[in-house]
Each structure stands twice: as C-alpha cells, then as structure tokens.
C-alpha cells in the first residue's frame, strides 16, 4: 500500500467522490452570480480599506506657552478709520504688549457711494506716531498743562498731536479735534478727521496673542490705560458733523482663531460645518451709543492628516512659533494644522442702559455707560478636539474581510443552490406520483 494513502484516512476534509456529485445548470448560474457578487464585494472591501476617516477625539489641552492668532475682517460702514482703535487685552485688562500683528485699515467710501475701498494703511497697535521726527531736536512741545505721557519721544514734552491727545486722556480731559493745539494743527489732525467723517472703515488682518483669556475690542478714539481704567477718547466720536452720527453697525466677514482651513482640507474632512459661526453675520444699529458684545469660547482644534510626522510638527512648533509671519502660524507641516473652533453668544445694549422690553424682556436691565464699540471677549476651553485622519482597517483586517466576503457569499450561494436543487427534486417527485 502506498504511504500516502495511510494519511488519507486522517483527512478531516473528506471530499465527495466525483461520481457522487450532481452538477446542475442552476448551480452553474448561482456560481457565476455569486462570483460577480464576490468581485463587487471585494471591490467594496478594497475601497473601505483605502478609505480615510476622520476620527474626532476630545482631550484635555495640555499645551503651554502657546500663541494664538486672531484673524479678523470686519466692516464698519459708519465709522471712519481715523476714529477706530483696536485694542487687545488680556484677562486682567492690561493691553497685551509686544504682540505681533498685521492688521490693516481700509478706508471705505460712504455707504451712499457703495463702501468702496479708498486707501489701505497699516494699523498701529499701541504704536507711536513718528510724524515729529523731522522736527528740530531741541523742540519740546507743550502738553498744555497736562502731564506728559511717560512714553513720549522726548520725556516731558508732547511733540506730536498723539502725545497731546494721550496727555489729555491721561488727565481725563477730552481732546476734541485739536483746535488750538499747535501740534495737531501742524499735523492737520482735525481736517484729516473731518475729511473722513462720512467714510467707513474695514479692519482686516491678524493679531498674535498669548493663548490666555482676554478680549479685544474695536472702539472709537484713542485708548489709554488710566490706572485700572481703560479709557477711550470718545469726544470726536460723539461730536460729529455727520447726520445721524457714527454708529457701530458692523459686518463680520471673517473671524477665526488660528489659521483657516484650506478649501481642499475642508472638502477632504467630512466636517464641512467646521465654519466659524460669526462669519458673514452683521448687526445694525442707528444709535451711536451702542455696544455689541460677543462672548467667544475658543476650543483648540487640530487636524492631523495621515502621514503626520510628530517630530517635524513639534520642531516646527518650537522653532518657528514666534517668528513665522502672521497668517502662517499653526501650519505644522505635512498638512497638520493647529487651529481653533469657537462657540459664541452675542449680546447688545444701549449705553443708556434701560431694559430689554423691545425684545420682550422687560425684566432685563442693561448696564449703563461704557464705551460704544464691538467687544469680543474670549475664553479658552480646557478641552481640545483632535481630528485625526486614520485608516480604520488594517491590511490583515482587509484580508479577513475578503475571506469573510468570499466565505459568506459562497455559503449563501450554496444555500440558494441547495434550495433550488431540493426544490426541483421535490417537484420531480411530485410529478412522479
């Protein structure tokens, strides 16, 4: 007896002898159909295996010493650029100093003329005007009995109109248009302002701030810190020749914290609604003394694509976080993006206080006084969202899937075929009787 036949007896997968098998046409059809199904399902498995999913994770934000960029694009159709001030403050109400920024003011023609852009100037954020540089070095302008600002170009002097304004403000005097103030008349401050009175202004650009709780606001007039008080010189705002006065009607074209996602990234990630809630919103008022507030809660969000290199990201983050130009912060290479989402509550009130009867809440008493303008106060959430790209299936998972597809389909097909066969046999027997 040949040796191999000894082991045939151990075969747990006994085959049916060819002669004991019955092949049928229906079986052939079922086989071919099931093959097609198998091919289709394997294709499905393949696409499933190649599919990239974005898995959102919620973690506690453990970053420290981070910076955040605020990107802003807002139009104020009824306030001229000369009047607008942008202040960025941290939680204690102190102005954030030394922040990198790239904000521009765009002068816009009056609303009646269609609010077309006229001129684009870079906005000086808490910066000094250097318009008096050409002066005689010994020149010491009078501060008109107000104390000279501490940070004046020449200590004890008010060489520029701005310095006089600051000196006035620090003494809590109103400044007005600067009539009779030599420095301002020289600089043509009043005329400059009056020429722009009917214009609007667009503020666009980004500010890089420390990632701490804070606020920023766009309010009229020069701002000063007077002790614990944050003061704006509102004289020029309220005292205006323009009919109806200036108002803080505004339209927010864009407001985002951190970089905006590129369009292809937005398309790629299923989260199409990662839009910023304030984009494209606007609020109107006819009251000059009106205050708009936005309470923003910022949630750090990062997008980590496939092929993310942790080392590269962190090295870029460490090395360039402070020196990259505004607008490029948060891009960490390989498409990794560190940005923020936010939720927002809006609130508005008249500076005259009063209740909210118009909105149906007469029990709601607004605070009185304050500064007209648009205030954003932002809070940083301790949670962080990570949208991580991942392939949900491993290669072995894919192989297992294929086996399951083949096995499952053949099982079903065998059952169908068996049913057809048995059915026809029964039918045959029925006809025999």
């Amino acid at each position, binding site marked *: *007896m040949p040796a191999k*036949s*000894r082991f*045939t*007896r*151990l075969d*747990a*997968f006994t085959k*049916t002898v*060819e002669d*004991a*098998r*019955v092949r*049928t*046409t229906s*079986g*052939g059809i*079922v*086989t071919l159909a099931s093959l097609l199904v198998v091919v289709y399902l394997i294709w499905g498995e393949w696409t499933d295996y190649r*599919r990239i999913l974005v*898995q*959102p994770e*919620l973690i506690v934000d453990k970053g420290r010493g981070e910076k955040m960029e605020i990107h802003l694009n807002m139009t104020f159709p009824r306030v001229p650029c000369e009047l607008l001030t942008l202040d960025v403050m941290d939680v204690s109400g102190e102005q954030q100093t030394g922040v990198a920024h790239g904000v521009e003011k765009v002068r816009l023609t009056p609303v009646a003329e269609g609010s077309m852009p006229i001129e684009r100037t870079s906005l000086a954020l808490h910066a000094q005007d250097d318009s008096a540089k050409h002066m005689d070095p010994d020149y010491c302008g009078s501060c008109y009995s107000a104390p000279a600002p501490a940070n004046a170009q020449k200590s004890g002097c008010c060489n520029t109109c701005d310095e006089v304004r600051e000196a006035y403000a620090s003494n809590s005097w109103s400044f007005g248009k600067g009539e009779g103030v030599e420095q301002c008349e020289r600089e043509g401050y009043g005329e400059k302002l009056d020429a722009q009175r009917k214009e609007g202004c667009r503020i666009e650009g980004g500010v890089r701030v420390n990632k701490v709780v804070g606020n920023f606001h766009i309010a009229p007039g020069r701002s000063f810190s007077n002790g614990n008080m944050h003061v704006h010189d509102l004289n020029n705002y309220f005292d205006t020749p323009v009919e109806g006065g200036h108002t803080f009607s505004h339209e927010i074209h864009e407001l985002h914290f951190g970089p905006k996602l590129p369009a292809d990234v937005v398309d790629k990630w299923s989260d*199409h*609604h990662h*839009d910023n*809630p*304030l984009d*494209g*919103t606007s*609020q*109107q008022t006819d009251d000059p003394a009106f205050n708009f507030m936005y*309470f923003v*809660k910022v*949630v750090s969000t990062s997008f980590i694509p496939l092929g993310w290199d942790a080392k590269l990201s962190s090295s870029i983050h460490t090395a360039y976080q402070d020196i990259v130009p505004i607008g490029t912060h948060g891009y960490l290479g390989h498409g990794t993006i560190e940005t923020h989402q936010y*939720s*927002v*509550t*809006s*609130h508005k*009130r008249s500076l005259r206080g009063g209740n909210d009867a118009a*909105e149906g*809440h007469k*029990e*709601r*008493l*607004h*605070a009185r006084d304050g500064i007209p303008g648009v205030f954003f106060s932002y809070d940083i*959430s301790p*949670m962080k*969202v990570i949208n991580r790209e991942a392939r*949900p299936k491993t290669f072995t998972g894919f192989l297992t899937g294929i086996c399951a597809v083949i096995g*499952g389909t053949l099982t*079903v*097909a065998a059952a169908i*075929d*068996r049913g057809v066969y048995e059915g*026809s046999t029964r039918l*045959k027997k029925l*006809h025999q009787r």
Partner: protein
Amino acid sequence: MAHMNGFAKHGLDDDSFSEKSALSGLRTFDAFPKTKPSYTSASRRGGQWTLLVLVICSVLTFSELRAWWIGVETQHFSVERGVSHELQMNLDIVVAMQCKDLHVNVQDAAGDRILAGDLLTKHETSWQLWTDKISKKRRRDHQAYQLLHEENAERMQAEEEDQHVGHVLGHMREGGKKFPKTPKLRKGEHADSCRIFGSLEGNKVQGDFHITARGHGYMEWGYQQHLDHTTFNFSHYVNELSFGPHYPSLLNPLDKTISTTPSHFHKFQYYLSIVPTIFTKRRVSTKSGSLDPAAIPQPPTLDLVPVKDKDGKEVLHVLNQLSRADSKTLFTNQYAATSQSREVPDNTVPGIFFKYDIEPILLIVAEQRSSFLALVISVWQHYKSTFETYGALISPFVLLKAVIYEFPSLLMEKEFNGVEYVLKGIRLREVPSPFCSITEEDRTEVTTCPHLTEVALDAGALSPDVMEGTETPTWKVTEDSQGGLPPPHAPKKNVYGECILRRSRVPEPLPPMSTNSTGQNLEEVAVLTSGEDGHSERCNISCTEGSPVPEDKSSAQLRQSQVKRTRQDSARSTVPAKRTKIDDDQSLATVNMDGDIIKEQDSEIQINS
C-alpha cells in the same frame, strides 16, 4: 404505464432536460455539486445535534432582534454652532424667609441684571408645611429628597438613567411643563416662607443667579427699609433647578435637595457648569460612525443664519428656522454642580448664589437603530457561525476519532477492518465512517452507513480523483443503489470500463464468502454483514468493459469478477474492538489483477439478470 415510467425516469431529471437547453454548458461552472441522496447519511445523533443548533440559533435571533430594537447609544461632541443669545432657567425653590424680604436677581457677564423676582412667581407658604411634606416623602421613598452631601444609590441610578436617550425622551413624552401647585396652608399656620418658581430667560453667558435679603447686597433704587438680621434664614429646598426647556421629570443634580442652616448669616454657593446636550433618536452619524455635523438637530434658540424681517432689516434674534420641533429630539442643558456653604460675618452678604458658566462643547447623545438589512445580515451571520462552529466542533471530533481508530492500524501494517474488493486492479474498500460506528441500537443504519470511502488502484496506485484527464485507463466505479439499470453515461476518455456495485439485503444468513455459479455465469457475492437478525448484506460487483450502451445489449460485456473479501470478522457491530489482521493474500490479488485469469472467468450475461 410504460410512458409514465419513462417520464418518471427522465421527465424532470436535471440531466435529461438541461442537456437540451442552451444553458447546459453552465453546468460545468457549478461549484456546489450536490451529493446524491444515496451518499448522504443521516444519523439519530446528527439529528439531535441539529436540534440543539436550531435552539441556539433561535436564542441568538431573539437576542439580536432585541438588541436591534433597543438600538445603540453613542455619544458625540461638537463645538456649538451658530450664534447663541439666551438661556432659559427654570427654578423652583422654597426659602425659609418671607417673600417680601427676598430679592431674586441674575447678574451676568454681559453686564445685564435680570430682575428675576419680577418674572418668577412667589407664593407665601409655610416652612413647616414643606418640611412635613418632604419628610413624609423621604419616609416613603428615600430618594425623593436628599441632603446635599447625601449619596443614595437609587438617586444616582435615577440620575444615570436620565442620561440615556430612551429614558429622557420618555420623560419628554410624559409632558407636563408646569410647575406643581403650591400646597395650601393648613389651619393655624402662618406664611413664614416663600416658594419662588418659574422660568426666565437670561443671556447665555457666565452669570450669577442669587437670592438675597432685601436691603443687603444691592444698591437699591429708592428707600427700602433695612431688614432685621434676625429674620434672615437662607435654609432652602430646591425642588428644581434646570436650564433650557423645562422638563420637570428630568432629574438634575440639584433637584430635590435640602440645605438648611440654623444661622442667620449663611452663604450658600453653587457652582454650575452647564453642558448643552442634545438627546436624539435621529441619525446623526455617518456610516462609519463618526458625527455628521449636518445632521445635528439645532436648538430653536440658535441663529444659524441672519434673517431679514419684513422691512428688510436684519434681525439676529429669531427662532431658528432650521429646527423643527419633533418628538425624537430633546434639547437640554445638563450641568455639573459643586457647592459650598458657610456661615459668614456680618459684613458679607448672605444668600443663595448660583454661579453658572456654559461649556462650549455640545454633547450629543444619539440612539439609533441600524437598518433592517443590517439586522438580517447579522442574524444570518449568527446562523452561519453557529453552523460553522458546529462543523468546527464536529470535524476535530471526527479527526480525533479517526486518529484514535486509525492510528493503531497505521502502526500495525496491513491491519484493516472493513471490506476490501480487488477487481481488475481496482482496490475497493469499504471503511465504516466513524460516525456510523454501528452499535446495537443503530442496526437499522447498517445499510446506509458503510460508505465506499476509498477506491484505489493497486497497480499504478492511481487515485480515482484523477480519473479524468489522465493517460492511464481507469475503472469508473459507481454504486447503483436502486439495483436498476446503470444511468446512461456518455463514453469517457481513458475509462477502461465501468463497474457497478450493487448491494442488496438477503433475508437469510449467508456464509462470510460465497460464490454462486449458475451455469457459466459466475456471480460473486461478498457478504458485508451477517446480521444476527438473519439478514445479510450482499455486495455484487459487475464490471463492463468500455462504456455500457443499453440499447445494444449484445455489445455490452458484463463481467463479473471475483470479489475478494478480505474481511475476516463478519460481526461489524463492534468495529474497533474486533479488529483482526488481514491476511496478506497477495497471491489472490495478483491473480485478480492478472487479466488472463479474469478473462477465463468472463462470461456474457444479460444486464437485467
């Protein structure tokens, strides 16, 4: 009758009708060859197993259906979209001070003060009345009212339940958005307490809701009498404190809590972190299970897009057009509460303070049922896996049995228990299947159990599996279970001839090996079994050289050959036990393999005989 017989034989025979059809070629693709019924065996034990498997299957089906019906709960999160404005607060609290002495206000980060006292309903009531009511409730149901620091398993369970969609939506359907009525004062009782209840809308910003005594803590408009400090008592029962739409039956952490103090100057502080939550039975996730932001139902108080009113003026504060009230979704705000309370010196404002802040991350608890198709597939998979497990359990069992029974025979050469036929160089063996081990009770299965499991060519050692397509002519062996005509087969290449194995039961006991000769015709009979009931199983092998052509009987040469019976023990009822060594009768086999000798025995007989 003859016609009927013909129909019976060929009428619906798959072979006969399909050959005519154009699709007959498809037959070759049939990957699922069916075993002829005569080759399948059914045993009682197999039947029992099948029943067990069916029971398991039905249990699985039931549980699967139940799980499908209940659905799966998933938690998602998303940063809240849209521009929010307002937050509804619902409060029902009893304070042990007279209504006229209490101030209820909200001061929020937006700088607004909400005169909640004007909006909420104040009812004069008696502290003793509520104390009695609550202690009565506590006696009946310990979880009804709780001290702040108290921990009660039932209460915790009730709170836990209120985080699940089914339960929460059930509460919503219970309806009743009203606060319960204030119980009437009993006789002799005077109103010494105040029940403050109702809903109010505040700004959705960080804020402080507080209840203080008149004349303390606020710069009042106009003159108000300074309140005597001895009337201060900020003991309170919180019946309800919730945010968002009012659903009284939802249990929040501060609902039904008791805080009492004997002191006049006491400050109760609660710190609440509010988490906007959506409970929904709508589908909010994509196929892959991640959140589909577009599918999140939006609360009606959120502005997603600025809307213009009739005059073309843009109004932000409108009810969200995109949200539809439906019974499948509930917007609420859960909160986490911490608290502290302490006695304070005279220069501090006593009172009850709720400081709240709103979290930016929206929690979405979604319960969804998978599609019915998915249910069907998963049930099917259960069936499949059950049967496969059954098979997988069986096959090692078979293997084990085979090893146990066959291993000794592997060690001891040539030991073989079974029937072996050697015919024209073809070794035919009947090996009893381990599953059909024949015991006394299984006697009835004798005829079906012994399978022709091994067909081997001794000379050339060709396996019958490679019968087709090989150069060496082989014998095709078929078993004719009906004992009738061999089925018509097309002549096959390389088939030396065809052997038909017939079995029959003989009513009388036969000697183990017998040779019947009727005249010139020699009929060789192997007795498979010699039963004690007097029956014998007879095996008759007749071989035809070439292909049998039934129409031309004269050309059909039926050869009957000597069937060598190598089994020595005829009592197969105890198969493994009574193994004996088979005679190595090689000489006989050689004789049989020798064509000349067989030729001598050749004789032409009638097929039907």
